[in-house]
């Protein structure tokens, strides 16, 4: 009776359903696990999920392309979800008017800081020039960051990895760092998280507070444009 397990695997490995279900399933388990132990920063559910899935793919010798055939349905929803950030932004509109000018100031200063800090620290620890160029746009969302890296002679695929790592840092410790600063204004907390660590920071800010999430989404979008504009002149200024 029934098919041998290997044949079932062969069938499953070829359908998008397997990795779609696995991605959502692993994420739910990671969330439950993280919550059970009091959600410590280092056991961030997104990080747990990514590590578990990468291990699973390596163990089963599955390529990223095969995985993405299933996972693309989740990935696709990032677009409409970003558009949906208009909802919390609309609800925080009064606040938005109040902090618009301070936000724009923080945008310019924060964007420049992100680029200069990455390049200077990278130089200090002895990284090569193409790597430094790949580091410069790491605070912004992947597609723009890769485009910028390409234009300035960095390595776009390295930039993609650095962008995700940057997002993880903000998502994992952003809340704790802002608590240390005694920063209580949700609009400022969100703006800083979205600016420093794009979408992953925005998703985390949104989990913590709706208003913070709205401002994180806004900062993510604005910083995409600001960093793209600032990287070439700042790199020249830094002598790269």
């Amino acid at each position, binding site marked *: 009776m029934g098919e041998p397990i290997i044949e079932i695997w062969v069938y499953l490995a070829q359908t998008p359903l397997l990795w779609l279900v696995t991605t959502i399933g692993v994420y739910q388990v990671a969330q439950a696990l993280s919550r059970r132990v009091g959600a410590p920063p280092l056991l961030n559910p997104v990080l747990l999920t990514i590590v578990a899935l990468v291990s699973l793919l390596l163990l089963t010798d599955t390529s990223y392309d095969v995985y993405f055939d299933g*996972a693309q349905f989740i990935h696709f929803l990032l677009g409409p979800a970003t558009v949906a950030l208009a909802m919390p932004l609309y609800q925080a509109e009064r606040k938005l008017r109040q902090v618009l000018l301070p936000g724009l100031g923080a945008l310019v200063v924060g964007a420049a800081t992100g680029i200069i800090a990455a390049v200077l*620290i990278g130089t200090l*620890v002895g990284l090569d020039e193409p790597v430094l160029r790949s580091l410069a746009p790491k605070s912004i969302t992947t597609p723009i960051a890769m485009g910028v890296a390409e234009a300035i002679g960095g390595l776009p695929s390295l930039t993609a990895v650095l962008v995700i790592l940057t997002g993880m840092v903000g998502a994992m410790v952003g809340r704790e760092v802002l608590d240390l600063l005694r*920063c209580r204004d949700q609009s400022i907390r969100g703006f800083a998280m979205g600016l420093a660590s794009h979408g992953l920071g925005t998703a985390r800010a949104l989990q913590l507070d709706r208003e913070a999430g709205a401002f994180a989404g806004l900062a993510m979008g604005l910083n*995409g444009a600001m960093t793209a504009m600032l990287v070439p002149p700042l790199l020249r200024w830094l002598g790269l």
Partner: protein
Amino acid sequence: MINALLSLLVFQLLGEVLVRAMGVPIPGPVVGMLLLFGALKLRGRVPDTLHKVSEALLNNLSLLFVPAGVGVMVHLNLLRTGWWQLLVTVIVSTLITLVVTALTMQGLVSVQRCARGGQTDG
């Protein structure tokens, strides 16, 4: 439900088209978000179904980054040379950016408050 999802997708599409037509370095969906924000302002309220669908998406925003995050595995070998230098650079510079942004905005908010307070007093 379908109408709400459709409007999100339509605004995303508008955003993508605008970004490409104007050649600006902003993601299409972010422009879609700003357009929808404008539309909500004109309408004066958020339709119920749109609110529900948006909440469902936003409550699970973290999950939506997982496929891209798993993509890191493809380029894991890029980190092999100088992985700790890269890690240190990313962690420290991200923390600096976070702190400087928050402090700048906080400072500017108090400056603005003082300036406005001064105006009404004087």
